[in-house]
C-alpha cells in the first residue's frame, strides 16, 4: 500500500558490497544511479533495490529462476560490452516486481536488470527477444 504511514524504510546499514551502480539508471528513473540491494530472509526470494539518493523509494526484485520457468533473455553485444561480461555467469539477473495489493504481483521479464557480480555495475537492458517477453507476467503468490 502506498500510504504516507508506510513511507519510512528501516535504516539499513548500506555497505559497499550491497551498492549497485547503474550508470544509466532505470528506464524512467534515469536520475537514480545508485541502489542498495537489501534482503530479509522472511521475504525470500524477493529482494529490494533501494534508491540510495532517496531512501524512501525502492523496487521489489526477484531472481527470474524463482518465478519464471524457461526464461532466457538474449543479451546484445552492446550490453555485454557495457557490463563487461565475459560469461553469462558473470551476471546477476533481477526482474522488477509490481505489487498489486497483498494477493497479486507481476514481474517484468521484458526489462531485466543485469549486474556484473565483479564490478557491481548494472543496467536495465532490453533483451533481443523482448517481443516474446511479458512486462507484467503474473506471479503465483499467497498473502
Amino acid at each position, binding site marked *: 500500500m502506498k500510504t504516507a504511514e508506510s513511507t519510512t524504510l528501516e535504516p539499513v546499514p548500506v555497505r559497499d558490497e550491497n551498492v549497485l551502480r547503474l550508470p544509466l539508471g532505470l528506464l524512467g528513473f534515469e536520475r537514480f544511479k545508485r541502489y542498495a540491494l537489501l534482503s530479509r530472509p522472511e521475504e525470500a526470494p524477493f529482494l529490494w533495490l533501494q534508491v540510495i539518493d532517496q531512501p524512501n523509494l525502492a523496487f521489489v526484485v526477484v531472481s527470474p529462476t*524463482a518465478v519464471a520457468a524457461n526464461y532466457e533473455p538474449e543479451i546484445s553485444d552492446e550490453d555485454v560490452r557495457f557490463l563487461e561480461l565475459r560469461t553469462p555467469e558473470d551476471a546477476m539477473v533481477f526482474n522488477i516486481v509490481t505489487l498489486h495489493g497483498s494477493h497479486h504481483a507481476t514481474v517484468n521479464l521484458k526489462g531485466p536488470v543485469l549486474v556484473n557480480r565483479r564490478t557491481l555495475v548494472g543496467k536495465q537492458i532490453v533483451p533481443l527477444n523482448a517481443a516474446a517477453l511479458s512486462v507484467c507476467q503474473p506471479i503465483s503468490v499467497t498473502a
Partner: protein
Amino acid sequence: MLVLTRKLGESIVIDGRITVKIVRVDGETVKVGIEAPADVPIHREEIYLEIQQSNHAALTHGRPAVPRLAHKSELCPPAKLRLVTVSPVELTSK
C-alpha cells in the same frame, strides 16, 4: 520537430557523437543504423514506454508487505542468459 530528408545510405550526425544512417528502405519499413557512445541508451519507443510505465508502477514508497510465493523452491539455480553478438545496433521501425 526537426524534419530532415535523407536518401538511402545517407546519415544524420547528432551532437558530433551520434550517427544515424538510413540502411534500408522497404515499402513502409525503414532500417536505421545507429552509432552512439555506450552511455547513450537507444530504445524502440514503444518498448521504452512499456518498461518505463512498468517501472513507475513498481516503485514503492517505504517498504510495503511482500507476498509469499505460492510455490517456493529452496534452491534458485542461476539465471540463464544468452549472450548474442550482433553489430552494429540496428533498429527497424515501421
